[in-house]
């Protein structure tokens, strides 16, 4: 309770800040759409071949979008030094991180929900029949991206060249999550759709391990 309540309140604050302007959401959606259209110039997106590339494209695009969109998570607290105010509150500092991870996860999921029908139409994928299982993969993959992305945004916000630094730190660490989400998605768009327990297992393990590491070491990032 001592952890859940502050987290919920802070999550409310994060969502309110974002939904007042919807800056992050709109830029992310437009960015992803633009990248998906640009990808169509590199190969024929209507062919059967595209079904083989589509999962990789989708996850790579989300990863790039995440590395851009998660960046303001901490830097926008710096403008008015509001992070210092949050740190003064008599709450577990991990709650600040947890709220930001949840909020970023929500933003990414909303963006994905908006983009998924467009993506399915553009690349001629049958999402309807595997929707439930696809949502499992999306949620697990997004949680991985939101967790690492939020923690590393806290890291990069304290360094110089922060815009460049975040993708640089994020992408190699997310390699396992990228491979697992792409492979799990590829299984779903196979001729006989299946949800690979191996890849879902790896995603669950990735999320569990990094949430634990964040819980153990995340508060050091919010010191001072």
């Amino acid at each position, binding site marked *: 309770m001592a952890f859940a309540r502050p987290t919920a309140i802070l999550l409310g604050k994060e969502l309110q800040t974002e939904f007042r302007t919807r800056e992050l959401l709109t830029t992310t959606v437009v960015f992803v759409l633009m990248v998906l259209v640009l990808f169509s110039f590199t190969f024929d997106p209507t062919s059967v071949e595209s079904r083989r590339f589509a999962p990789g494209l989708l996850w790579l695009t989300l990863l790039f979008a995440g590395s851009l969109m998660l960046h303001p998570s901490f830097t926008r607290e710096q403008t008015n030094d509001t992070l210092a105010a949050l740190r003064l509150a008599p709450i577990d500092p991990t709650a600040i991180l947890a709220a930001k991870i949840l909020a970023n996860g929500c933003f990414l999921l909303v963006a994905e929900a908006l983009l998924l029908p467009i993506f399915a139409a553009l690349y001629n994928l049958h999402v309807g029949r595997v929707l439930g299982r696809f949502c499992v993969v999306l949620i697990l993959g997004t949680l991985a991206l939101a967790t690492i992305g939020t923690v590393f945004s806290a*890291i990069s916000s304290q360094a110089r060249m922060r815009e460049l630094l975040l993708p640089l730190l994020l992408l*190699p660490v997310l*390699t396992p999550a990228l*491979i697992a989400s792409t492979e799990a998605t590829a299984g779903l768009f196979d001729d006989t759709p299946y949800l690979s327990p191996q890849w879902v297992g*790896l995603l669950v393990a990735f999320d569990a391990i990094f949430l634990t590491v964040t819980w153990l070491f995340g508060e050091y*990032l919010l010191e001072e």
Partner: protein
Amino acid sequence: MATLSASASAQAGTPGHPHSAQLTETLLVALLLAVAGYCALFVAPTEATMGLIQRIFYFHVPSWWSAFVAFAIVLVSNLAYLRSRNPKWDWLGVSAAEVGVAFVTVGLVTGPIWAHPVWGIWWTWDARLTSAFVLWVLYVSYLLLRNLIEEPERRAVISAVFGIFAAVDIPLVYFSIWFFRTQHPQPVIGDGGSLDPTMGKVLLLCWAAMLGILVLLVRQRYRVEALRWDVDRLRLDAARNGNESGAR
């Protein structure tokens, strides 16, 4: 207090002070390296199928083993720094990370030199090679991150946390790429089961020499880092004082 001890430890390497112990160590490692190199080139038997090129094995494999020793030191230093806040752990961490990256680079360069005549290609996207490459990128970004944070204490805390994330990621990277690439043929690298006993002994001797280099380099780098910590502190203080007098 930390800065005082830093200066004291840094002094040991400056000219004018007796550093004969350091010289002896360096000479010992150089001698060990010469003996190991001689054994690798002339004492170890020539491998039956690969021929002379296989001798690169005595430099390639020990580099990788030494890199893993270095990264283990980085992880221990990161954890110890967060627990104790003693800057010495930070200096040890960055020193070991730099030396580890150097060893991984040696491993990544000697690998293709060995692979090209034997496999016919420079690189294959096999599990071990790909995860080795990701490992290199992870620690290079650890070093880059450190360069981009000015204040020594913040730099130490933040890079320690990133170092822990990177270390936790390594087994996950390996497993994911291993699952991913299992359909590809697995090249056999340094199969310990069928190793000739002389080859095994020479390999261990080469590893000992590499570890000698590791210790020398880490110690030298540690002294430099201790000095850099002092310089960064002084520079920050000067900047603050300058701002204050400017404000007045």
